[in-house]
């Protein structure tokens, strides 16, 4: 219940008007960090497809850590078929360019997929776009770290 209220609050927060905000606005940066945590840490773990559907643009593209290109429906199917036990995203850095924001950080994910344990650590690079008053992700790179 508390989690659902939290998600709803963050979605309203994501859709809040941004008129007058300039590039590198600290408010935008903190919003993007909150949305990163919502999409990666909370929604993936909770298999919250509704939230992810709102946060990923219909033309979303992901290059995963194996170099494969995936679209929004591939990602939503992956979320549904995985049991995420831990998902940590830290050291998040955000740069803004008017209605576009770039976020990067380190991630560590551990879970079960098709009955097998998987574990991955790497760096993500997300491109967020302010579209019709709401921040959505249009592109993600996930790449292994050394």
């Amino acid at each position: 219940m508390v989690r659902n209220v939290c998600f709803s609050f963050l979605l309203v927060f994501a859709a809040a008007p941004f008129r007058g905000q300039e590039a590198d606005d600290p408010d935008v940066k903190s919003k993007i960090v909150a949305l990163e945590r919502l999409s990666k840490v909370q929604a993936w773990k909770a298999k919250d497809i509704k939230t992810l559907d709102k946060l990923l643009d219909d033309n979303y593209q992901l290059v995963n850590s194996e170099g494969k290109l995936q679209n929004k429906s591939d990602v939503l199917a992956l979320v549904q078929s995985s049991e995420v036990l831990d998902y940590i995203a830290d050291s998040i850095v955000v740069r803004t360019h008017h209605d576009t924001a770039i976020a990067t950080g380190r991630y560590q994910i551990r879970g079960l997929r098709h009955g097998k344990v998987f574990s991955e650590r790497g760096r993500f690079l997300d491109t967020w776009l302010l579209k019709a008053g709401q921040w959505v992700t249009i592109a993600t790179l996930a790449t292994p770290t050394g």
Partner: protein
Amino acid sequence: MKPILLAIMIFVSATFVSAQAATSEGTAAAIRALEQEWTTGQSHNDNAALDLIFDNALIYVEYGNLVSKSEYLSRVKHSDPLSDQIELQPMSIRIFGHTAIAVGVYAEKQMRGSKHELRRWRFIDTWVYKKNGWVLVAAGSSPIMN
């Protein structure tokens, strides 16, 4: 009267659609040309050309590490062009107003001792249109696993 009005409306909307398509095609061509310029600039240690292509706030993920524009330019400046060759392959461009996403593959040939090592990477780059034209604001790639 009505058929004339309808004909005008069809003509106007066809012109509008055509202009939109031309703009999108022009943007995609410009982004492809810049991607090629980047490859050429890197292979010729041409930091002046790269400086114009990259935004000062560039976020670049190279081999899983976060690299700033100045760090990347410094590495390019001191690298041996013959030891690292890049071949760009076809890419797709998606345009979201003043933001564009380029996704494609490149082959990297590196000298390891006396042998050439060939690796393929899938990249995802973000370009933003600013006052002097399109600039690269984020870039990264993942190794393509077999």
